[in-house]
């Protein structure tokens, strides 16, 4: 009984526009989806996003009668700052201090409220005294707000990630060639991000706002295209991105054919919008649930499913 409870957890995607939850159980290392649910956020300002997330999550847990009490979550991408930082190993300061010095010029809040994690994008070598790391940073107070909210909801959060990293874990299951570099676009109603992923690792990630729907679809396409161009330009400067073979699109309007055609024509890349649940074996999700999931709805759970697919189910500690 104890093992069963330890192997069950909720994968919670705290997206900017909604909360999406997967009730996951690991069976012999493979995640199985017991239930899924989503709750839209009430209207509000970005300052109130954590409160609105927790309110929606409480409502979702109550209405869906979800009993699982362990969870992993992805914080909303619009509350996270990401930067590529060059670490100079010849400097006396440790990498953390160098990152902190870089971020203090970027963030608008108190440095004592800074919370960040980073990973290597390029491998340190003897020939070069510098290497590149990708940093994700957010406010410690916001994280504590979420963790306190989880505690109030009797949830024990064991891992708090960012959505692009969750997508990287999903893409590793969706793309047969694990060595290839893959671009991914996640779109919400008002915000989205483009990320470049290689071997389950996010190499670069850039969030962007989407123009209002009343400006027309073409405006949205142009905005996404421009953002991807910026990312590619950055990556060309730091890394060789010719290996990028395809772009995977998830989220809002991911199934639109004009969108795929636009990206294909502009970047001469293959554009796909697979269902995230294609990464699971057939028996990992109840047939009724799989049949009921329309592609437009299934693609919204990409980040949540990515969390569920992270090594060891994303459970740490």
């Amino acid at each position, binding site marked *: 009984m104890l093992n069963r409870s330890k192997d069950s957890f909720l994968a919670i995607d705290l997206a900017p526009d909604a909360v999406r939850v997967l009730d996951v159980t690991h069976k012999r290392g493979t995640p199985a989806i017991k239930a899924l649910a989503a709750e839209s956020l009430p209207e509000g300002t970005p300052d109130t996003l954590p409160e609105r997330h927790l309110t929606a999550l409480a409502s979702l847990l109550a209405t869906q009668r979800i009993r699982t009490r362990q969870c992993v979550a992805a914080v909303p991408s619009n509350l996270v700052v990401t930067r590529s930082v060059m670490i100079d190993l010849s400097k006396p300061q440790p990498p953390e201090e160098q990152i902190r010095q870089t971020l203090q010029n970027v963030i608008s809040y108190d440095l004592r409220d800074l919370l960040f994690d980073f990973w290597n994008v390029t491998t340190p070598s003897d020939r070069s005294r510098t290497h590149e790391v990708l940093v994700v940073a957010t406010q410690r107070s916001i994280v504590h707000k979420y963790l306190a909210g989880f505690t109030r909801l009797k949830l024990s959060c064991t891992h708090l*990630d960012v959505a692009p990293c969750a997508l990287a874990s999903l893409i590793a299951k969706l793309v047969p060639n694990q060595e290839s570099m893959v671009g991914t676009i996640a779109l919400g109603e008002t915000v989205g991000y483009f990320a470049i992923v290689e071997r389950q690792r996010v190499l670069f990630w850039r969030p962007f706002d989407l123009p209002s729907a009343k400006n027309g679809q073409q405006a949205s396409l142009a905005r996404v295209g421009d953002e991807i161009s910026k990312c590619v330009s950055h990556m060309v400067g730091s890394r060789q991105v010719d290996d990028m073979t395809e772009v995977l699109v998830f989220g809002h309007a991911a199934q639109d054919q004009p969108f795929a055609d636009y990206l294909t024509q502009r970047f001469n890349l293959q554009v796909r919008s697979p269902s995230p649940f294609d990464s699971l074996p057939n028996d990992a999700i109840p047939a009724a649930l799989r049949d009921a999931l329309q592609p437009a709805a299934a693609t919204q759970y990409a980040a949540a499913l990515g969390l569920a697919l992270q090594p060891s189910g994303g459970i740490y500690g």
Partner: protein
Amino acid sequence: MAELIPMEYRIQVARHRHIRRWIVATCLAGIVAAAGLANAYAWQQRQAQEFAVLEKEYKNKSGLIKQATDLQAKRLDLAARMQKMQSLRDDKTLLSLLKSVAGEFTDKDSLQYINITAHGNAKGAPAKAPDGNDYAVRLVGITTDYTTHANLLDRLTDAGHKSEPPLSLPPDSTRIEKVQEGEVVHFEIVGEAPKSKGN
């Protein structure tokens, strides 16, 4: 993967988890200890009750044993008395002496005390009879006056000669003294087996 859970939160959660486990373990240990103590107390109570019951039974049985012992002692005492009475009843010398003495008292004489030593070994017993048997009779009483005392002495002397075994009253066998200003005479007469001629 990124990890945005602060270390202090993880430490706090781990500390709470350890505290919770310790509390649970302590509660379980307490429950086990309490159960053990309760069990030991109940066992002690049961033992005490059993001991009380056994003690009560022992006391009851001790009373019965004491009663049985007392009864046995009484029976032995009774048997000894009966044996004594039987021996007295079978003692012809004693009965003969008593009969010969008792029949000589009249309404003017009163016997206060009689001591018959029928079979020798008596302290201060007189000389042996011709048949070798030792016996003596000591009479204490009161009589009306010297005359009645003399008459009693005569009758006892005659009866002693006739009785079997014979009882002899030597001349110094009586002592008298007046009491209550001469109204009655107190006497003490000692009879014994007649002395053999060789003596």
